[in-house]
């Protein structure tokens, strides 16, 4: 990990660069460009924890969507990330490998970022009867459709791949678990950043909006909603620190589940405090809400992950501490 002072400087630089890029007409494309200029791939290689924490928190906070999730997943799998390599992500609300291999046929279905528009190749992880496989296929083998959904600006694509399995190489199960873990941490950081932004919007509104002759921030019902928002958010942030200190699939799963739980609390309370103002597209809240709903499903929702963890606890009849002082 880098020093605290260096990290603070990096956070500020990345945050500012992403905000400026978002304000340009190119939007998300500009965010990718500015991250490349800042040396994102070198950061990811040298200081993966700080790189993921800082960049994804800033993306969430600015409601930016970038294609760097591809690099995070590729690096965790053990493939050197590069700007012309897209990654096939699991389907929405799932975390199984997106592909399968039968005979010499490779088939896959999943999500991908906007990188698919410019990439030459795509990395696909597949399951088969004999374990896991990883293949790098020409982008031409992929049938790519933009997903509009609730949040077209998220830039996600629905992808089907059909190609030859000859290029596939065997992959350790632990490599896919590591990819899911790091992907979950990245998305959970992005959610935490978005939660911070939503809380800031709701807080400002509560202080400025006058009703019954006073700012609504003076009403205890409003104050308690915002207090519960901060509790949910800081609980989530604590799980992210724990997942960074003790990186493994369990702490990452718990952080992503905590993110999913937190985002429901945060969006519900902030939307209620923003009330009529937040219900129109004049106010930026709607973008964060819609993005949050999408991010909650990447690499598994809070509900699905909680059930998965519960099954593991029941199977082992054991409750692990996972983190110590």
């Amino acid at each position, binding site marked *: 990990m880098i020093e605290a002072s260096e990290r603070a400087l990096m956070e500020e630089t990345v945050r500012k660069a992403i905000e400026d890029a978002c304000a340009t007409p190119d939007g998300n494309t500009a965010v990718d460009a500015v991250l490349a200029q800042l040396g994102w791939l070198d950061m990811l290689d040298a200081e993966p924890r700080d790189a993921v924490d800082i960049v994804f928190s800033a993306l969430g906070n600015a409601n930016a969507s970038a294609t760097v999730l591809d690099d995070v997943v590729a690096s965790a799998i053990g493939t050197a990330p590069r700007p012309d390599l897209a990654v096939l992500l699991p389907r929405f609300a799932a975390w199984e490998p997106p592909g399968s291999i039968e005979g010499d046929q490779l088939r896959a279905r999943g999500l991908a970022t906007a990188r698919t528009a410019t990439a030459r190749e795509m990395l696909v992880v597949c399951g088969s009867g004999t374990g896991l496989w990883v293949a790098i296929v020409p982008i031409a083998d992929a049938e790519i459709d933009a997903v509009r959904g609730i949040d077209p600006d998220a830039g996600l694509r629905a992808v089907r791949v059909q190609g030859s399995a000859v290029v596939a190489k065997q992959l350790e199960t632990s490599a896919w678990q590591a990819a899911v873990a790091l992907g979950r941490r990245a998305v959970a950081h992005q959610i935490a950043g978005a939660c911070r932004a939503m809380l800031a919007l709701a807080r400002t509104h509560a202080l400025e909006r006058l009703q019954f002759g006073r700012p609504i921030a003076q009403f205890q019902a409003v*104050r308690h909603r915002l*207090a519960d928002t901060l509790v949910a958010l800081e609980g989530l942030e604590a799980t992210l620190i724990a997942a960074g200190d003790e990186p493994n699939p369990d702490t990452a799963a*718990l952080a992503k589940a905590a993110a999913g739980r937190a985002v429901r609390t945060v969006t519900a309370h902030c939307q209620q405090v923003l009330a009529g103002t937040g219900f129109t597209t004049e106010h930026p809240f709607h973008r964060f809400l819609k993005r949050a709903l999408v991010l909650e499903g990447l690499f598994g929702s809070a509900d699905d992950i909680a*059930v998965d963890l519960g099954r593991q606890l*029941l199977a082992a009849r054991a409750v692990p501490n996972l983190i110590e002082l």
Partner: protein
Amino acid sequence: MAFSKQSMSDSPHLADYRAELHAWLDAHRDELAPVFAAPGTLDEHVAQMQRVKAILFEAGWMQYGWPERVGGRGGSPMLRTELGAAIAGRDLVDPGIFSLVEVLAPTVIDFAPPELAAEMVPRLLSGAEMWCQGFSEPGAGSDLASLNCRAVPDGDASTASNWVIKGQKVWTSLAQYSERCVLLTRTGPADSRHRGITAFFVDMDTPGITVAPLEMINGDRELTEVFFDDVVVPADRMLGKLNGGWAVAMSILPYERSSCFWQRIAYLYRRLQRLVDVAPNDERAAEVIGNAFVQLHALRARSRATQHRLDAGATLGPETSIDKVLLSTAEQTTYDAVRRLLPGVVEMDDSATAELWRSEYLYSRAATIYGGTAEVQRNIIARRLLDLGSAE
């Protein structure tokens, strides 16, 4: 054993301490085990706690993390946090009653005359004595600063040799077992709020003190009313300064919100373990248990960060209200999970195991009430952390 000299920021060192502690607890398992059958009465739990403290004191473990000037062996308070969590997680002591050590000893160390602290603290640590905390009153619960149990000097306040106390406390835990009480009194004008409160360290056998246990919702008589009828307390038993009692009361917060919480978290993990031991292995149980686990983990992660900040020298403040809300919520979620997954155990079952679950389930309903209600915590978060200004 020599764990007192190094900094706890050196975490391998803390891991060594933890490993050695658990090895010792394993080796002394039989000696430490409760001598009564679960669920046990309050008398039995109190006797067990004092017995365990005595054994740990004799072996030297109880003294780690306490200053040498009160008979401790020095080192970071995280050492005693580990000890409390280890014995609570093994069901050797009830963390609710054990945590009074963590709440009251630091107050006496920081605010009593040094000789008094040196004399008294070892008695608390060694299990020779119990102490209680006389804060709440019938008219002063959440609004503690409105308390009106009066202390009057027998002469001029600055030279008085004695103070005379008259009034009533309520919801005082374990006063019927206690030798001493850290007591908040009104010494300023009736409307002086937090500016006119003074703390005293009172011997519970002083004439004029009457303790009346209250039966709680789970049948235990842990809480009491304490009546003070012209109770004479020597002036050298004042804790802190005259009218400085609010600072004494507030000084408890960092210990209550760090060490005590970590102990309670260990206890809650043990409770979830007990549920996982017997719950049906089905989808509904997986969902309920998984959700409780996610909440407990977020609480544990938050509390861990708080202890690390305290160990690094930070002063804990209003941000610990977040720890408090997370703890009370996770505690109630854990016992709600028990009730959902073991139908009838809380409501209809008369086995010893069920008695324990029922008692703890009912006690857990107080988690959002004691130590500052959930509403007070949210008020603090809104005012101090979110900077929302004054409420209406």
